[in-house]
């Protein structure tokens, strides 16, 4: 995937996989209910950049109303992927409500997201992702996956370092300044730079 695509991940294995790639354009550990909203805000802030949110079923269910807000805003540069393993894998795979028939695709479609799909095989997933990456419409992709416990290296960076790395990437690629640690306005506080 293009290194300029901005990726948003929740906590857990999804984050650990992406951390292992060393990718800069990745903001991680958007905890329960905050991954899709953060992806939405990022997509609205940078409408010319492609944003991919890699949510999970348990994470999304915590703030399910965010699907409605996503649909209303309808950012054409956002791909919201929900890896639905039908359980809270980090909690001994305690079943989530999607294991009892709750249908996230139907919810998204009911909210008005046209490109809401459920995918169960890798070939179709790749085709749909290609279509979404090359298009200009909001996609909501429910990727049904098996629970798994592959060993992935624990991340080396914590959340603040990840944030700084991501922000510096956006600053550099967008030629903007986001962090202003010396945003003072009084003359006597002004410290000239070297």
């Amino acid at each position, binding site marked *: 995937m293009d290194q300029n695509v901005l990726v948003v991940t929740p906590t857990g294995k999804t984050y650990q996989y992406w951390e292992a790639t060393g990718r800069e354009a990745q903001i991680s550990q958007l905890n329960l209910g905050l991954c899709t909203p953060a992806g939405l805000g990022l997509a609205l802030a*940078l409408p010319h950049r492609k944003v991919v949110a890699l949510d999970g079923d348990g994470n999304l269910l915590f703030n399910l109303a965010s699907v409605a807000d996503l649909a209303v805003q309808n950012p054409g540069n956002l791909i919201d992927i929900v890896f639905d393993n039908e359980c809270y894998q980090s909690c001994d795979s305690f079943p989530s409500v999607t294991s009892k028939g709750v249908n996230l695709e139907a919810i998204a479609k009911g909210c008005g997201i046209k490109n809401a799909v459920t995918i169960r095989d890798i070939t179709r997933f790749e085709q749909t992702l290609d279509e979404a990456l090359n298009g200009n419409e909001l996609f909501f992709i429910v990727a049904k996956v098996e629970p798994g416990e592959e060993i992935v290296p624990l991340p080396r960076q914590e959340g603040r370092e990840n944030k700084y790395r991501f922000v510096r990437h956006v600053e550099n690629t967008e030629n903007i300044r986001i962090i202003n640690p010396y945003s003072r306005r009084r003359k006597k506080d002004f410290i000239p730079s070297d």
Partner: protein
Amino acid sequence: MKQGSVEAIVTGLKEAGINFISMLPDSDFTDTQKAVMADKDFKCVPVSNESIGFGVCAGAWLGGKKPALLITTDGIMASAFPLTTLNMQKNIPVLMVIPYRGSLGDGIWFMGPMGAATEPLLKDLQVAYTVISKVEEVTPAIKNAQLSAEAWLRPTAVLLTGEIIFEEA
């Protein structure tokens, strides 16, 4: 809400550089919320609960916007989780402008607990805040709160008491 208060809030937001606003409709804030939604200087994103708004504003900040939340004291209660796991953990700033229901002079019985819980909760959540009761102090308070939010990478809040939010009976 008093018209002068609405203008002071909108002016403060503009002079603070705010260009992205998330909100949940609130009876005390409707006039202000309508004013910012009608103003092309702001990208406005209404949300279905305030905690979603914190996520949306965090994403917007990461993308270079200067976000603010126009939310109620109830919204602070509903947002302890994102304030802790997102703003506090990652040091992500956001400005909150809040009608301070439950401040002294509030005559609605169920607002009492809001007043009792709001400031202790903001302190526990490491939100720097100020309480404003005079209309002429609204604009500079909003500008100051945003200035510090940006420099400290922390959420800040401006609480507006009844003197500002309520029309005279």
